[in-house]
């Protein structure tokens, strides 16, 4: 039986709650794994929760105008919007979200929408380091978008649809039906783009954690920072679920979703712990080089 609209909204909230918590735990556990690689004990797995509570419990907050407040709102809207149009679990009433209402193009738009909104907000903050962070972020985003978009074009040609649910449906029936087996070049191009999208090493110069230019959120504090931290979890979860759906056969239950997305995210940590950070110009050259060629090759192969 088809659930009513009200029930679907309720399910969407449950789904969002699950992905937020999963995203936060994922960030916490990956930080701990990275610490182990470096021979440290590392922060507790629940540290992201504490940081959000701490940020939201600040007693005062500074604003720089309307757009400054709207920046995190756009970012959060981008994160939630991305997630809402992807089926988190294939064929599940509760976790399919509103995937039938939007297609791959809308999701791709939402992925970049948040960053653009954040650029406007951070720009109004007036801090020069925000502007540096934004320009680095947008430059890197433009670069990794090329292999990502080529990879999307390849799988859209392959499956003949933009509907994510249909793409997942086409991959059901075993490991050999997954895109990673049927179109490995597109997956390689997309996974390299994913490294840039996640802003882990070696592409972490945008947020430059713990250095003088912390990137776009330099001037954000208190509850605004809390919103950005929450969004980070949702957005990470949404991107992982998208990659799982497009390239790794989707998930038919929540446990499979957790296992697959954890392994996809682990690629970030694996690469991030093995390679040093690139400068922005180096990462742009990198993305427009081999990954783009792989992307073009995957489109040509899919077309013939």
């Amino acid at each position, binding site marked *: 039986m088809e659930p009513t609209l009200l029930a679907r909204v309720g399910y969407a909230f449950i789904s969002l709650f699950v992905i937020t918590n999963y995203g936060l735990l994922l960030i916490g556990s990956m930080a701990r794994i990275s610490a182990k690689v470096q021979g440290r004990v590392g922060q507790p797995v629940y540290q992201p929760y504490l940081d959000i509570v701490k940020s939201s419990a*600040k007693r005062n907050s500074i604003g720089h105008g309307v757009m400054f407040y709207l920046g995190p709102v756009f970012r959060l809207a981008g994160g939630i919007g991305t997630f809402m149009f992807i089926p988190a679990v294939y064929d599940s009433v509760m976790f399919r979200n509103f995937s039938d209402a939007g297609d791959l193009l809308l999701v791709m738009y939402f992925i970049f929408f948040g960053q653009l909104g954040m650029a406007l907000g951070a720009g109004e903050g007036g801090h020069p380091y925000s502007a540096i962070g934004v320009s680095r972020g947008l430059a890197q985003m433009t670069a990794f978008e090329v292999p990502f978009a080529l990879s999307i074009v390849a799988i859209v040609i392959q499956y003949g649809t933009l509907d994510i649910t249909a793409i997942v449906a086409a991959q059901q029936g075993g490991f050999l039906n997954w895109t990673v087996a049927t179109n490995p070049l597109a997956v390689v191009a997309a996974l390299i783009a994913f490294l840039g999208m996640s802003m882990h090493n070696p592409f972490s110069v945008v947020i430059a954690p713990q250095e003088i230019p912390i990137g776009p959120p330099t001037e954000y504090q208190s509850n605004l920072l809390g919103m950005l931290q929450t969004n980070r979890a949702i957005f990470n979860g949404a991107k992982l679920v998208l990659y799982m759906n497009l390239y790794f056969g989707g998930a038919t239950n929540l446990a499979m979703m957790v296992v697959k997305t954890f392994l996809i995210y682990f690629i970030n940590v694996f690469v991030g712990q093995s390679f040093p950070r690139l400068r922005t110009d180096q990462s742009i050259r990198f993305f427009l080089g081999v990954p783009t060629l792989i992307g073009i090759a995957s489109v040509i192969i899919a077309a013939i």
Partner: protein
Amino acid sequence: MFVKKLKPAPLANEGLRPEERELFCDAAPTSYKGATKIVEDFYNWARAQSLWILGFGTGCGAIELRPLMTSRFDMYRYGIQARPTPRQSSVFVIGGYASVKTLKRIVRSYEQMMGPKFVVALGSCTINGGMYWDSYNTIKRIDQYIPVDVYIAGCMPRPEALLAGFQELKRIIRAGGAEGQNEYAINFDWYKANQKKVIKNWDMPDYSW
């Protein structure tokens, strides 16, 4: 607990050029009331577990902060991280002696931090001037200029002593005793007078919000 005696009166910002004055806040800070006890206890628990240090080295003692990030000392396991911007950090570590020139930066950075904010003063120099006790351009006691929550004595205190100091700070925060922000707001005139007494070329706003 604290008496709210200071009204947000216009500050003159006389150190600034006339055209710059309107760019800055002219109201003195006000003290903030906490939430209800149970909520505030929960917040304090979270605050104590998530200490973000302002990553400015204000003196030679700042060199003892760096080993805390390494595998040997690993401050992350206590929820301590370095943040590069005063807007996001909650702990200001005064790294040893503060020259008058540095004090200007300390005051501006401290005022820009969002409350509740905590100050850890590191080394003997912050307590009584230490080996710079008779220097013409270093201050003797940092708590005459900004409120301090924890002092860590030593010259230099080892990273272990710093970690012990952070544990003490956590205890104070959890007990609800780290109200430096309110102390600064209530005694704003006294702190400002002390600051202006030593900083002769006062060319900054009276309160950097």
